């Protein structure tokens, strides 16, 4: 069983009209090295028709957040906080009750269409199964017809015949269409799409994003779009949440976050992207170092060690999200430094070196290594040389 602590008794609808309300969600995984704090206090709310983009690099906790919302984490995970769907607390629901919400209330599109479909069932069956699971009155025949309709809607040619194919008979892009058809099947209120196009080529990605748009319009569902691609979010989302080291470090309207980022990490991320639409070859500005260990996060701002604006005060405590403009929040005590028209190059160096070893990586390596080289401090001169 997923262990969890409920912050308060199930209260009635929060009254804000939010469909999905995530409050202070945290996820911890016990590992041999200690407790991994994968998600640390993420909050957001989603109203009908909203499209929220969640961006972050690998390991930032963006996928784990969604799996926690869907109740799909392994039993060993410790989930705390609150996830309310239409005012109803989801954390702590039994599997049977949760199954009524999954697929019907909240549907999910996974990253890898190769593994999210069952290889031994025909795709038509997999869609009609979803339909019948939530609508006991639907006849097999009606469900099959609905499956064919859905396949057509997501742009699969000869949908009726293709419904009898197995997943391996589809290409990656076509499989992802099937996955989206399954997500749409029960007219969900919320669709969570976790890196829906990462495994696909760009021309196919463009097709799938189009299909996703159709799905959003067709179902009227609010959407959470999780991706590492800042370009995808720019075009699809209304609001964006930037994650770093398991925390939301900046959130707000897409335009605000992209054009006037107030958290140095967001600025650095945008500055390290080569731009397709930029003829001038300005040097990229990478962010030095690596994300911190999630086993022993540093006491202060998790971005501190990599931040060009870092001062001693940053290490005192982890900064909260503070409102910097209406609806736009950033977790940086020096966020006013980024006010106005700033460029990543004003703060980040166009550097080409990468000198420090990440603590996390070293910690991971420790058990498997012979002690001599592993515990050698970075400052010891190279004895081999």
């Amino acid at each position, binding site marked *: 069983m997923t262990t969890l602590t409920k912050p308060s008794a199930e209260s009635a609808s929060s009254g804000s009209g939010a469909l999905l309300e995530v409050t202070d969600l945290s996820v911890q995984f016990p590992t041999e090295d200690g407790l991994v704090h994968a998600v640390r206090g993420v909050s957001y709310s989603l109203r009908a028709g909203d499209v929220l983009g969640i961006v972050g690099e690998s390991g930032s906790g963006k996928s784990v957040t969604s799996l926690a919302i869907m109740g799909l984490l392994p039993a060993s995970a410790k989930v705390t906080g609150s996830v309310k769907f239409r005012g109803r607390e989801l954390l702590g629901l039994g599997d049977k009750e949760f199954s009524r919400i999954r697929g019907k209330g909240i549907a999910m599109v996974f990253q890898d269409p190769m593994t999210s479909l069952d290889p031994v069932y025909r795709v038509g069956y997999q869609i009609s199964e979803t339909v019948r699971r939530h609508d006991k009155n639907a006849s097999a025949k009606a469900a099959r017809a609905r499956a064919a309709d859905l396949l057509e809607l997501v742009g699969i040619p000869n949908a009726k015949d293709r419904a009898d194919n197995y997943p391996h008979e589809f290409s990656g892009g076509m499989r992802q269409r099937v996955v989206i058809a399954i997500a749409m099947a029960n007219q969900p209120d919320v669709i969570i799409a976790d890196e829906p196009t990462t495994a696909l080529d760009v021309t196919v990605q463009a097709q799938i994003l189009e299909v996703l748009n159709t799905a959003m319009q067709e179902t009227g569902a609010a959407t959470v779009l999780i991706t590492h691609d800042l370009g995808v979010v720019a075009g699809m989302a209304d609001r964006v949440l930037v994650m770093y080291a398991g925390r939301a470090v900046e959130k707000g309207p897409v335009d605000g976050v992209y054009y006037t980022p107030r958290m140095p990490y967001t600025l650095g991320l945008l500055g390290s992207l080569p731009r*397709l639409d930029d003829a001038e070859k300005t040097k990229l500005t990478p962010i030095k170092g690596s994300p911190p260990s999630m086993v022993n996060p540093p006491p202060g701002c998790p971005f501190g060690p990599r931040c060009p604006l870092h001062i001693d005060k940053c290490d005192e405590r982890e900064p909260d999200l503070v409102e910097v403009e209406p609806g736009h929040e950033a977790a940086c005590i020096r966020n006013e430094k980024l006010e106005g028209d700033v460029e990543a190059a004003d703060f980040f160096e166009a550097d080409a070196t990468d000198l420090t070893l990440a603590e996390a990586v070293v910690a991971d390596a420790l058990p498997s290594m012979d002690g001599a080289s592993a515990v050698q401090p970075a400052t010891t001169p190279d004895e081999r*040389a």
Partner: protein
Amino acid sequence: MTATDVEREGAGDGQRADGVEPILVVRDLIKHFPIKGGGLIRRTIGQVKAVDGVSLDLYPGEILGLVGESGCGKSTTGRAIMHLQPATSGSVVFQGRELTKLSRGKMRPLRRDIQIVFQDPYASLNPRLPVYDIVAEPLIIHKLARGEELRTRVRALLELVGLNPEHANRFPNEFSGGQRQRIGIARALALEPKVLVLDEPVSALDVSIQAGVINLLEDLRERLGLAYLFIAHDLSVVRHISDRIAVMYLGWIIEIATTDELFARPSHPYTQALLSAIPIPDPRRERARQRIIITGDVPSPANPPSGCRFRTRCQKFRDVLSESQQQKCIDEIPLLEDRGTGHPAACHYAEALKIL
């Protein structure tokens, strides 16, 4: 008829009129992989035409980007050029020497001059060797340095790629992905090559890390005068780093031009669709963009369409061309040549279009 029956003019691109000789000349390179039947006698029942007549020139000190989607043959091209997978036919001439016919032994001394960096820094470094040994290995194999000199050179190499030489005793698993890729680059640079084949060198890395490696590659080119064949699927990265770009589709180069030219006047419908499909991290611009959506997936390279290989997905073929024009796409292989758009494009109806 295959693409190679046809002399593919203009692969040299005509962009270089200053008399500088290319360091690497690839002509009609073909790499087919046999498909074996499942019977007792595993007869060859078909060919996967991974690379089907690729011609390109690489000039000293130049970065040539080779882009395309998965399965277009860009990595196979790189490997066939390096003679890691022998080419089925065609020629690869490096500084006046034909490589495709060389034996392994004869090829070895030439490997000093052409080195490769692989995509996955987690798989391309031996986890049991400390970084020092990884970087020193090529120098030892080629008997270029020993003793104190070897140590000095390895340290210098690590410094060159932006790593701390004091970490030479560490094992690959202690380094981040970006740092591992730097180790791979140091290893490739150990023999002071003239040409580096970079096979998706940054696609496994997070963006904030990727930028540092791109900067490093730019620096190295400037400091060492290297030429790169930069193979990647990400056109944003390729635009940033390349002087010229060749776009591949299903085993062919379908358009080749200088970077500025390709982005200002993309002429092949596939290049246009590719440029239009890539999302830009700029919300206002992105929302205002008109996408050219091409339908379907890349056809199988074992059984490519007749005539133009892109015609099955081509937006121009579908929406613009008349039936007689379409017939030409079905019957005739479009040569890679300049049809008045300023650079070669392999489309009968090539026409420059402003996408960005």
